[in-house]
């Protein structure tokens, strides 16, 4: 009897087609959803990989010392002060007098610089491609060292006098040019320190530093506390000031964004295209003796190192050179 009932039930279930459409529809839906999720996941993975690469690019920190040797040779000492290995891929030598640019390949055995390691490249001993063209003592040169992550280390131009040493130390060594269009704002912000106005720079008189800029690009970006103001002097070294806050003209009043509450910036106020911003930094410190306040009585090259994210989620950084500023 029970067997008969089971058989009857099985037959009934086989013939019962109610709910089939729901099941098939659900399968179709899940197939599409799964494909879409896979797609989004793969995009996200790629974004993460490239963000990682961008972050590594920002992390690269190297010091360099150039020594002009007799007969127009050059000794380049490169020290990696960062936490990741650096690979040098090219050396540019630019003769400012004759306007000649030559790019040399770095020899394979000298291109990898591991953390806290120092390498020396002697342009005569080490095989350079093309062959090393000796420096002319009466000419002014500019050097560029290029890493495989895309950073370009470029010290100030120098005269190729034998025995001349050019040292580039401190944070950040890069004056790499940005990927987004930001311009210095000359007249729209009432900034009284370090601002470019009428092709001149207002002198720095100690204390917190203020710089003005305007986002003239077409994408928004968000600053993080990794942004710095850099004062560089060949006599006293490099001093950096950390980002304290920035104010955005909204355009009725200044809207302040406190940098202290920003971890990695995603929740902070974005600087949209067209926004005028005043960036406030603490008094720069550092120099050849670490954590020492900036010394007065010197002339400094001033850079603004902006770090953060752009609206597409890419790591954003840009170094802007403001020019030479006499201190108080």
């Amino acid at each position, binding site marked *: 009897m029970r067997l008969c009932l089971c058989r009857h039930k099985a037959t009934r279930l086989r013939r019962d087609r109610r709910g089939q459409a729901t099941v098939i529809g659900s399968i179709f839906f899940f197939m599409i959803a799964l494909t879409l999720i896979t797609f989004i996941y*793969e*995009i996200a993975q*790629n974004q993460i990989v490239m963000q990682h*690469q961008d972050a590594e690019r920002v992390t690269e920190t190297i010091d360099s010392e150039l020594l002009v040797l007799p007969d127009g040779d050059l000794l380049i000492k490169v020290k990696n002060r960062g936490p990741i290995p650096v690979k040098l*891929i090219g050396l540019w030598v630019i003769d400012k007098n004759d*306007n000649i*640019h030559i*790019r040399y390949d770095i020899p394979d055995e000298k291109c990898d610089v591991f953390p806290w390691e120092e390498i020396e490249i002697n342009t005569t001993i080490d095989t350079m491609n093309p062959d090393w063209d000796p420096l002319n003592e009466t000419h002014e040169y500019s050097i560029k060292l290029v890493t495989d992550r895309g950073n370009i280390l470029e010290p100030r131009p120098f005269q190729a006098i034998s025995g001349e040493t050019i040292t580039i130390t401190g944070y950040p060594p890069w004056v*790499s040019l940005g990927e987004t269009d930001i311009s210095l704002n000359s007249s729209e912000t009432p900034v009284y320190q370090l601002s470019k106005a009428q092709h001149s720079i207002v002198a720095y008189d100690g204390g917190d530093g203020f710089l003005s800029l305007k986002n003239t690009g077409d994408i928004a970006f968000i600053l993080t506390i990794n942004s710095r103001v850099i004062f560089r002097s060949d006599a006293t070294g490099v001093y950096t000031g950390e980002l304290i806050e920035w104010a955005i003209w909204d355009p009725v009043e200044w809207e302040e964004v406190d940098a202290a509450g920003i971890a990695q910036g995603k929740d902070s106020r974005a600087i949209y295209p067209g926004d005028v911003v005043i960036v406030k930094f603490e008094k720069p410190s550092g120099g050849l003796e670490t954590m020492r306040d900036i010394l007065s009585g010197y002339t400094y090259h001033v850079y603004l190192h902006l770090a953060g994210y752009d609206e597409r989620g890419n790591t954003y950084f840009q170094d802007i050179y403001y020019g030479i500023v006499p201190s108080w």
Partner: protein
Amino acid sequence: MVRELLGSKRAVSPVVASLLMIVITIAGFGLMWSSTNQWISLQRTNEMQVIRERLIIEDAWFTNGEEKFVNLTMTNIGRIDLMIRYVKFNEVTVLRMEDEELLSVGRGETVYRIIEDFDWDTNTEYRVTLITDRGNRFEAVFVSP
């Protein structure tokens, strides 16, 4: 009995209707599935390639011989080969390459390109913009001698 059944046409219409519905459903889903799949794979390919592009402009050599020109040197630091379509100086297009003459830069490769007949001014800041075939923009600023 058999003759009766063969002669009866009363159940034909629901059967044909069901068959039609099944065919339409399968065809509709197939169409939707293939187009979705095609769109997704296209987006996947494009998006991923766009994300993976990185380029730096190492140097711009403004030369002043018989004719003024600029020699641009660039390195692909991304994870994919790329093609450069436009070169702009201060947002003015100075070079537009057609499909067959796109400047190809392989992964990790350093290439140069001479921008001829560009009448640059001395001691002037130029924002050089390279736009790739996939629409990415890479910029750097150089000052002419």
